[in-house]
């Protein structure tokens, strides 16, 4: 067809179509270059952030900084209790989030048909997912701090974070379960298993890999959450709480909240030093959560399903 066109067409037309083809190829090449540069921006930014935070914070972070107590007004304070509070609230939040969200995800994925209840739950989860964390923080303030008279507590903070992270955890569950081949369900049912037995013994073990990855990534988000905690778990370590307090009923200032307070109302002269150190620790924690998520997910899948994914 191209040959025929070339034979019949006058020379001028042929030249025109050739130069037009060249022009289109040039546009394509430029677009390709731009898309590559756009993607490189992401990696470039990440490298810049990591390099900058390490440059500023590496000299600050040492054992004394990580484990030391914060000081009220003199230099040299550490962030030990803040790290403890971050993990404390993280574990408490996961203890609420995982059972509720995994159950709801199992229900929607394995039980619910296209009924009305399913639609309402799905829509509620989507709505819940877009509630800004500061708004969730104010809700926590109204309910846990004021209506329940709990004041600022680790428990109130953890419950607020639970509300914030339920939708993501439910989505992770749904996706993990959806990834399990239908043959697993059929085989279990054919062996006489009830639906629940099928879920617990056949489906959950084979979904545990992606589920774990999801849990750890969400844990990373919980660890860094700030806005929802300031008015629920409080922004002071000293308020009714000793440095390493096991009680859920006391104020618990996390590391991310401490970084915010450092800027806002620090009395210590070395606030910038502490800020740089805290920012680096938060970054390293995020990197660790990401690595653990990948490795643990892969290991667990292999152990429980006998195959590598």
């Amino acid at each position, binding site marked *: 067809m191209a040959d025929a066109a070339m034979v019949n067409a006058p020379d001028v037309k042929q030249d025109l179509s050739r130069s037009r083809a060249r022009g*289109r*190829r040039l*546009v*394509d090449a430029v*677009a*390709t270059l*731009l*898309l*590559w540069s*756009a*993607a490189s921006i*992401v*990696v470039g*930014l*990440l490298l810049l*952030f990591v390099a*900058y935070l390490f440059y500023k914070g590496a000299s600050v972070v040492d054992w004394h900084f990580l484990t030391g107590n914060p000081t009220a007004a003199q230099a040299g304070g550490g962030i030990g209790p803040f790290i403890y509070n971050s993990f404390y609230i993280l574990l408490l939040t996961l203890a609420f989030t995982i059972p509720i969200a995994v*159950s*709801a995800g*199992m*229900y929607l994925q394995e039980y*619910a048909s296209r009924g009305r*209840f399913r639609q309402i*739950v799905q*829509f*509620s989860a*989507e*709505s*819940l997912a*877009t*509630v*800004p964390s*500061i*708004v*969730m923080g*104010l*809700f926590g303030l109204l*309910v846990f701090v004021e209506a329940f008279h709990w004041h600022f507590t680790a428990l109130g903070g953890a419950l607020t974070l639970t*509300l914030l992270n*339920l*939708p993501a955890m439910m989505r992770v569950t749904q996706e993990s379960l959806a990834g399990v081949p239908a043959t697993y369900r059929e085989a279990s049912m054919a062996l006489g298993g*009830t639906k*629940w037995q099928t879920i617990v013994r056949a489906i959950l073990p084979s979904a545990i890999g992606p589920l774990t990855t999801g849990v750890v*990534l969400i844990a990373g*988000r919980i*660890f*860094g959450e*700030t*806005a929802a905690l*300031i*008015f629920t778990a409080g922004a002071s370590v000293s308020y009714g709480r000793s440095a390493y307090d096991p009680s859920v009923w006391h104020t618990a200032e996390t590391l991310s909240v401490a*970084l915010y307070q450092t*800027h806002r109302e620090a009395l210590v002269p070395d606030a910038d030093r502490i*800020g740089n150190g805290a*920012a680096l620790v*938060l*970054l390293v924690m*995020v*990197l660790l959560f990401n690595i653990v998520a*990948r490795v643990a997910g892969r290991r667990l899948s292999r152990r429980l399903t006998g195959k590598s994914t």
Partner: protein
Amino acid sequence: MVGFRASRAHRDERIALAILMACSAIFVVAIALILGFLAINGTKLFFQDHVSPLAFLFGTTWDGFGGHYGALPFIVGSLVATGFAILVGGPLGVAIGVFFSELAPARIAAVFKPAIEVLVGIPSIVYGWLGLTLLVPALGAITHTNGDGLLAAGIVLSIMILPTVISLSEDALRVVPNALREGSASLGATRWETISRVLVPAASSGIAVAVILGIARAIGETLAIQLVLGNAPVLPKSLLSPASALTSEIIIDMGDAPDGSPFRHALFSMAFLLLLIAMALIILIRLALRKRT
């Protein structure tokens, strides 16, 4: 014996289903309570303190202790910063989504994808700290100002919405059937022509959802922008003058506003407004997706 076992399994089944349904119901109860509590506390300013909603929405003077509850400066601040983020981060994010879906070799994607996951995971307070100590001084040096304001907030938000826009627009492009790519290529289209005239239009509703969720992320972001806005409760004169936003003003004033005061009620009205915007975006997403089916 068999009968006993079977009936026990049957009973377990019913208990399990009841628990799973109860857990699902928690989602419904939670969002209903959040809407309810914020609607009640967010309208006390109008019903209890008799401040007119118009004075709240369009008033330009904010003086919590002086009886002025004009939230327009914060509404404008939130909208401008979010708009900037969408204008910059939206196209950039979609472009990178296209890159991952259509161009990226597997080996490159294996490096770039984890980078995006880390960017998602970086806490907003750390973005704020980066903005405060890295971006604001840089902007200040370039523009000979303090460097803080809506431009800095817009840039921070652009970066923060990137991962959302990238991964969702990539997903939207991936579900476009391969037949469309092949058909376009067999008509002699270059890759760019296929992308711009076939794939992106075919994935438009999914890309719209990606951008709307980017808006949702940007409008609710608090600490990252509070640290770089300069926090002046006035209508911003330019992108480089100190400003404030709905979210950042709440966090600044909440500790100072006394219980039961109109000042505090006005802050809850701002939170309620944010919640209404978020709900409106969810409905927009539903509409965008309905168009597709």
